[in-house]
C-alpha cells in the first residue's frame, strides 16, 4: 500500500516499465527506477493527498475562502485535480472573451498533460491551436498577438524548454510597456503557462523550476499555484492581468492534488501571499509543491517541539508580497524559506535578504533565516529524492531555527 502511495505522490502514477519490453527476461522483483522512501521513515512519508490540510476536501471549506466573490461562495463546487482546474480556467477564459487564444506545442489534441482537453473542439481551431515546435517562435507570436490586443495564452511544454524564448520574454515582453512609454501599448495580454518542478523521474530536462530566472526581470509577473483552487483563480487573474505573466504549474500536482473547486469564474489576487496556517514561533515561506512537504514537517515539528508555526504561500513570487512576510517574521522572529529550485540566488535569497534588510524585522530575528532548497546541482535522475527538499530537511531546519 505504501509503495503504491509512494508512486502516486511523487511519480504521479507513472511507471517507466511501460517503455521497456523484454520478452525473454522476467524482471522480478521489479526494481523501481524512481524515488521511494524506506518503510522505517517517520518524517519522509509520502504526501497523502486525500487528507492533507493543504487541499479543500469538502465543498464547505472550499467555499469558506474570503477571497472568493459572494456569488461564487454561494455557489457549488466540483472535485477536480490540478490539470482539470487549469482546463476549467482556460475554458472559462475562452468563453468569456473572444480575444483569448490558446496555443503551443500539442495543445490542440488536449496537451501532453491534458490541460487543454476539449478546448479546440469547443472553441474552434482558430482559437486553440498547435504551433510549430519552436519556443522562441511561439512566445514571439504571443507577444505580437498581445501587442495587437489579444489575450494570448501560450504554453511551453516543459519549463525546462523555455530558454529558447528567454530573449523574447526578457527583452521584449517584459520591456514592451516601458519602451513604448507615452504611446501606451503593452503586451499585458500575454500569459505563458509552463509545467515545472520535479515529478520523480524527470531528470535534467523534465524537472526544472526556473522561477528565479524570471524574478530577476522587471516587467514580468511570476506565479506558481499550489492547488487546483489556486490554479484556477490565479490563472484567470494572470489572463486578466494587464502585465505579462509567467504561470508555472507544478506538474507533479496535475493528477495528485484533488480538491473541491468552486464552480464559475473567480479570480485570486496576484502579488498577494496567503497565510495557510497561523502560528507564533516560526514562519515558513514557500510556494507550489513544497507547501505539502512544509505542511507535513510542521505537523511533526509542532507535535515534537511544542511550537506553533505559521505557513505562508507566496503564490506570486514576483512582484511578491513582502509586507505579509515581514509582518509574520516580526511576530515569530524565526524564518525558514523552502523551495525546490537551487538554493543559490533562488527566491529564498531574496526573501532572506529582505527580512534582514528591514530594520524592524532584523531586530526581531532570534535565529538566522534558513533556506531549505535544491542543492546547487542539476536534477539527476536517480538522486531526485535527495535534491528536492523533503520533510526531514524542513523538519531539521525548523529544529535548528528553534534551538538556535
Amino acid at each position, binding site marked *: 500500500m505504501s509503495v503504491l502511495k509512494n508512486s502516486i505522490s511523487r511519480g504521479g502514477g507513472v511507471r517507466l516499465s511501460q517503455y521497456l519490453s523484454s520478452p525473454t527476461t522476467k524482471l522480478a522483483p521489479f526494481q523501481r527506477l524512481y524515488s521511494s522512501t524506506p518503510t522505517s521513515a517517520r518524517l519522509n512519508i509520502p504526501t497523502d493527498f486525500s487528507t492533507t490540510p493543504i487541499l479543500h476536501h469538502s465543498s464547505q471549506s472550499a467555499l469558506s475562502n474570503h477571497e472568493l466573490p459572494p456569488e461564487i461562495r454561494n455557489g457549488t463546487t466540483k472535485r477536480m485535480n490540478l490539470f482539470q482546474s487549469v482546463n476549467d480556467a482556460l475554458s472559462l477564459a475562452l468563453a468569456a472573451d473572444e480575444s483569448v487564444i490558446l496555443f503551443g506545442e500539442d495543445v490542440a489534441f488536449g496537451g501532453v*498533460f491534458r490541460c487543454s482537453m476539449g478546448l479546440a473542439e469547443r472553441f474552434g481551431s482558430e482559437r486553440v*491551436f498547435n504551433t510549430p515546435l519552436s519556443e522562441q*517562435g511561439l*512566445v*514571439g507570436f504571443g507577444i505580437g498577438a498581445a501587442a495587437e490586443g489579444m489575450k494570448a495564452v501560450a504554453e511551453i511544454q516543459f519549463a525546462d524548454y523555455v530558454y529558447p524564448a528567454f530573449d523574447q520574454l526578457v527583452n521584449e515582453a517584459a520591456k514592451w510597456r516601458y*519602451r513604448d512609454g*507615452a504611446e501606451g501599448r503593452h503586451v499585458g495580454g500575454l500569459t505563458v503557462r509552463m509545467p515545472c518542478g520535479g515529478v520523480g523521474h524527470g531528470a535534467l530536462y523534465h524537472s526544472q523550476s526556473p522561477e528565479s530566472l524570471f524574478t530577476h526581470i522587471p*516587467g514580468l509577473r511570476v506565479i506558481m499555484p499550489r492547488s487546483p483552487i489556486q490554479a484556477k483563480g490565479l490563472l484567470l487573474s494572470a489572463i486578466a492581468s494587464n502585465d505579462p505573466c509567467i504561470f508555472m504549474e507544478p506538474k507533479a500536482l496535475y493528477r495528485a492534488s484533488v480538491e473541491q473547486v468552486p464552480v464559475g469564474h473567480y479570480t485570486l489576487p496576484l502579488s498577494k501571499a496567503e497565510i495557510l496556517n497561523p502560528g507564533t514561533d516560526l514562519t515558513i515561506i514557500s510556494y507550489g509543491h513544497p507547501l505539502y512537504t512544509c505542511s507535513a514537517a510542521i505537523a511533526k515539528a509542532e507535535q515534537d517541539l511544542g511550537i506553533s508555526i505559521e505557513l505562508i504561500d507566496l503564490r506570486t513570487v514576483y512582484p511578491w508580497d513582502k509586507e505579509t512576510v515581514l509582518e509574520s517574521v516580526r511576530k515569530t522572529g524565526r524564518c525558514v524559506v523552502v523551495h525546490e529550485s537551487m538554493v543559490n540566488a533562488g527566491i529564498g535569497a531574496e526573501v532572506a535578504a529582505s527580512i534582514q534588510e528591514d530594520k524592524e524585522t532584523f531586530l526581531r530575528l532570534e535565529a538566522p533565516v534558513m533556506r531549505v532548497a535544491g542543492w546547487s546541482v542539476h536534477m539527476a535522475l536517480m538522486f531526485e529524492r535527495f535534491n528536492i527538499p523533503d520533510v526531514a530537511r524542513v523538519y531539521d531546519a525548523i529544529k535548528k531555527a528553534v534551538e538556535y
Partner: protein
Amino acid sequence: MKLPLRLARTTMRWAILRTTHHRFSSSLSQKPGAAGIRFPGAVNSQFTNSLTFEHPSTYPALPTYRCVDQDGSIVDKSFSPPADSLALEMYDNMLCVSIMDVIMFEAQRQGRLSFYMTGQGEEGTCVGSASALEKEDVIFCQYREAGVFTQRGFTFDDFMSQLFANKKDSGRGRNMPVHYGSKALNIHTISSPLATQIPQASGAAYALKMQRLTDPNIPPRVVACYFGEGAASEGDFHAALNIAATRSCPVIFICRNNGYAISTPTLEQYRGDGIASRGTGYGIDTIRVDGNDIFAVREVTKRARELALKDGGRPVLIEAMSYRISHHSTSDDSFAYRARIEVEDWKRRDNPITRLRKYLEKKGVWNEEKESAARSRIRKEVLKAFAEAEKEKKPAMRSMFEDIYEDLTPELKSQMSELKGIIERYPNEYDVSEFEGGKESLKP
C-alpha cells in the same frame, strides 16, 4: 531537440486513440504500382531511382524585379507609374530622410546626441514599401527604416524629440536614439535585439486576422515587418516564417538586403541564394526586388498586400536588394572593412534618390532649381526642429520607474523615494535641473 516524455500512461493511450482519426495522410499505404507513398511529411513526393543530391548551384538565382532602370526610364511596359503628385511626395520623403541623416550624423560626431544610424541607400526600400500600405496596417521595424516613419507622417519634431530623449519623446527618454515608435501611425516601437520583431509580426498578423473574423466591419489589414539580411540569420527569422505559414498570417516580411551586417559581408552571412530563396522552403510566396527602384518596391509591396489578404491570409516575403552606403552606425567606421571606392561607386552609380530624380526630370516635373529649393527648405526644417528639441527639458525622473507594470508596485514606490532621499542628502552630487520637475517628480 526534446524528448517527448509522456508522463502518464493514460495520457499515452489517449494520445494514440485521439490521433488515429486525425491521421489522414499517414494511414495511407502504398498502392501497387504507385509512383510514391503519401508520406505524411511530404505528400506529393515521387519516388526516383536516381541517387542525386539537389545542389543549389543547379538552380538559377532568383531574378530581381525592376520597373525603372538606372537612367530613370520605365522598363516594365505593363507597369503604370504612380501619379506625379505621389512620385514627388515619395521623392520629397526620401530627400527628407537623407538630409536628416547627414545632419544628425554630424550632430552625433559633435557629441550633441549619443548615437545615430543613417539609412543612406535604403530610402527607396523604406519609402516605396510604406507608400503601398494602408494607414491601418501595422508595422514592425528593425532600426534602419526612418523612411517608413516619414512616409507614414512622422514629423521632424517627432524624430528630434526621440533622438534627444526630451520630455516630448513618447518613449519618455528610455530608448537609445533611432528607436522610434508611434501608436497613431501603427508602428511598434523599435527594440535593439535583432529579429525579435519577426515572430511578433506573425502573431500581430494573426491577431488582425482574428479580429476581422470576429468583426467583419474592421477593414482588412496586414502587418509589414522589416529586417536586414543579417537579422535573417537569427533563429527568430526561421521561427517567424514557419509559424506565419502554418497559421496563414497576413504578414509581409520585407528584408533589406544591403550587403553588410556591420562588418560582415553576405558571403559570411549565408551561402544560399540570399534571403528570398528561403521563402519557398517555408511555403511562402516570395519575390526579390531592386531596392534602388522605388516604383518597383512600391508595386511589389502593393501586390504582396493583396496576396497576403487572399483566401483568409498568408505570408509573403520580399527581399529588397540595395547597398548600405552609410556606416552601420555612428559607432562604426565602415572603411575598416570595405573599400571607400566601393561605397563611392554605389553612391554614384546607383541609388534610389538619383534614380527617381532622373525619372522626374525626364517627365519634366523636376529640375535643378526645384532640387536646390527643396534641399534648402528641408535643411532649414530639420535644423529648426533640432534646435527646439535640444532646448527642451528632459522627461520627469519618475518616468524611470513608471510603466514597468501597469501600476507602480510597492517596491518601485519605495525605490523611488529612496532615490529622492539620496539626491536630497547629496545635492552636490546630482544635477537634476534638466529634468522636468526636478527631484520632486520622484514623490511616490
